[in-house]
């Protein structure tokens, strides 16, 4: 308790995505008393991924709460606290455990402001370690963002670098409306970036152009950002200039950035790890079909998980998009002119 008012630590060294999450949580807890963290094992244990490591020691057990083992409970308490003026940041331990939270997110979080004409609102964040590729057990590897993207009133955010994780989590906590904040667990510790602990939020209403290009647009989010950038590298070696866009905030979508890119390149490959049918890639392809048809010189391509469950880990890499699959799709698109 003594160090409750200790200054935020300076971070001179590069940090991983998961460390960036912790840094953002600590920053915001330090600067805003109404921020509390809750979830299963987030206290002494610091979360199964260590996202909340050290926070309970630093801020006390009234700011970092272990919950009973029930996701309905976590969602309900979160909505209850948020609607009474706190800013809860809840953690779902894994993607596969958000389903019992759907009811509260859809029926209450997303509608509190709407239903009461602004009298109450719901400034909450639900953090969800998201996606496959870490050889985890069943239900620990699911890319289920599409469950939330047809639900008005929510924001669905998926950062894919330490810097974006930090800045977008700050933005999510400060946002007066509910945010589903999905974290690509496969890249939690993949690489490090310098992330100054300056409390600077990043916008939640833009797509991030990670690489400029002129021949083809590669649109993606989450763990696949890495594969997509590598695919762009591979294409570059063959003289193809690929623009890479990290959608980062799925809803509300910044389609303009994508449309501008496609206006320039005329070709688009959408990459995501969720099953293809009715994955969020469909929305982007649909918008292209509606608004960019005359810009397209090749059919839109989607590189996605198959329309099946992500298999247990012996087969999971065969399910996920890969650099090779992305390059192959890009080449199909480039074959048109």
């Amino acid at each position, binding site marked *: 308790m003594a160090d409750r008012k200790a200054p935020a630590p300076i971070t001179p060294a590069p940090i991983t995505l998961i460390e960036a999450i912790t840094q953002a949580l600590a920053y915001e807890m330090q600067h805003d008393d109404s921020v*509390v963290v809750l979830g299963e094992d987030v206290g002494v244990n610091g979360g199964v991924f260590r996202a909340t490591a050290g926070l309970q020691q630093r801020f006390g057990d*009234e*700011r970092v*709460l272990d*919950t*009973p083992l*029930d996701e*309905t*409970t976590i969602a*309900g*308490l*979160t*909505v*209850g*606290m*948020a*609607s*009474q*003026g*706190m800013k809860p940041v809840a953690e779902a331990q894994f993607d596969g455990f958000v389903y019992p939270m759907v*009811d*509260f997110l859809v*029926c*209450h979080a997303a509608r509190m*402001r*709407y*239903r*009461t*004409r*602004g*009298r*109450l*609102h719901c400034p909450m964040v639900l953090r969800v370690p998201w996606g496959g590729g870490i050889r985890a057990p069943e239900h620990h590897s699911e890319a289920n963002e599409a469950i939330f993207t047809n639900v*008005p*009133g929510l924001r669905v955010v998926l950062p894919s670098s330490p810097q974006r994780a930090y800045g977008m989590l700050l933005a999510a906590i400060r*946002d*007066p*409306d509910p945010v589903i904040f999905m974290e690509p667990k496969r890249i939690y510790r993949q690489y490090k970036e310098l992330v100054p602990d300056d409390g600077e939020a990043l916008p939640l*209403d833009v797509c991030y152009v990670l690489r400029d290009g002129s021949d083809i647009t590669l649109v993606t989010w989450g763990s696949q950002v890495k594969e997509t950038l590598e695919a762009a590298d591979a294409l570059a070696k063959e003289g193809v200039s690929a623009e890479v866009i990290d959608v980062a905030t799925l809803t*509300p*979508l*910044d*389609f*303009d950035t994508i449309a501008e890119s496609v206006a320039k390149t005329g070709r688009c490959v959408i990459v995501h790890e969720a099953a293809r049918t009715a994955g969020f890639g469909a929305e982007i392809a649909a918008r292209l079909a509606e608004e960019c048809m005359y810009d397209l010189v090749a059919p839109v391509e989607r590189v996605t998980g198959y329309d099946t469950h992500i298999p247990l880990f012996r087969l999971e890499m065969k399910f996920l998009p890969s650099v090779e699959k992305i390059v192959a799709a890009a080449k199909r698109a480039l074959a048109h002119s």
Partner: protein
Amino acid sequence: MTVAAKFEIEYLQYLGPDGKPVAALPKAFKDAKALVPLFKQMLFVRTFDSKSIALQRTGKLGTYAASLGHEAVHVGIGASMRPEDVFAPSYREYGAQFMRGVRPREVLMYWGGDERGNDFEGPRHDYPWCVPISTQCLMASGAALSFKLRKQDRVAVACCGDGGSSKTDFYAAVNSAGAYKLPLILCVINNGWAISVPRTAQTGAETLAQKGLAGGLHCLQVDGNDLIAVLEAMRRAHERARKGEGGSVIEFMTYRLHDHTTADDARRYRGEDEVKDAWTREPMIRLRKYLEAAKAWDEKQEAAWLEECGKKVDEEINAYLETKVQPVEAMFDYLYAELPAELAAQREAAIAWEKRNG
């Protein structure tokens, strides 16, 4: 036999159906005169209820959930609360809400298909009506948790029905309130029916009160047609909550004298006899008799008050009927604090469309 745990659940009743005390009255509610404002409130609710039903029958209101028969529970709960407490109703506790400042016209607006009904003048922090059964209980537990964490001297009170006590969200509220020792009062208003499903089909438990044991909460079963028992039960639960002794589950035994809502026809599934019998135990008669015996109320007063109630309700109905429909952009204007660019375009398109075709 080694005993791991032992429990007893108390039943509270003070006024019998005939209006005569069946037990020594609790200290706090000995003064009959002090009950008169509450009785008047019960009469007001009943007036509001019957006029609302009539309004629905003439097509001027959507589906309406009546509160007939629940007046003592609803008003008693409302009377027990402070403004800074948080109330999380289901969808028929108008009696409690009126006491907290919700206006009848707001109730009508809500059932009349207008979101502005939920933007009520009652305590601004109270929850709106809640259609997804019992989710309000768990939300209230979250509210109570926020009070505890911020060391606020406030209590969260949620209502659900006998049916609602089967809902997993109800159990989650019990469990979390127990785990965190929260200032939460869960009022289970057992009116015998969940639409067509009788109380007996909901659970194998002898009482609904005992569900609180699952979370180590204080449990109480109460005659919900007896205003004094309701007040005393709530008083005890509030006291525990404020003292940091944790949450309560109170089962209020009452009866749904009307159809489930105006969209329902209870004759399909329950007998006339049962309803007739329930009328002999309803909450107004006994309280009236009690107050009359205590010389705190008489027929003349009642007639005058009922006339006042009628006028007041008519006024509210008129105010409701005069409310203009929201413009089309109202769909967008409360979705996010700031409308995202994407939606701004849709909003403009909607306005333009209505201008041309609306």
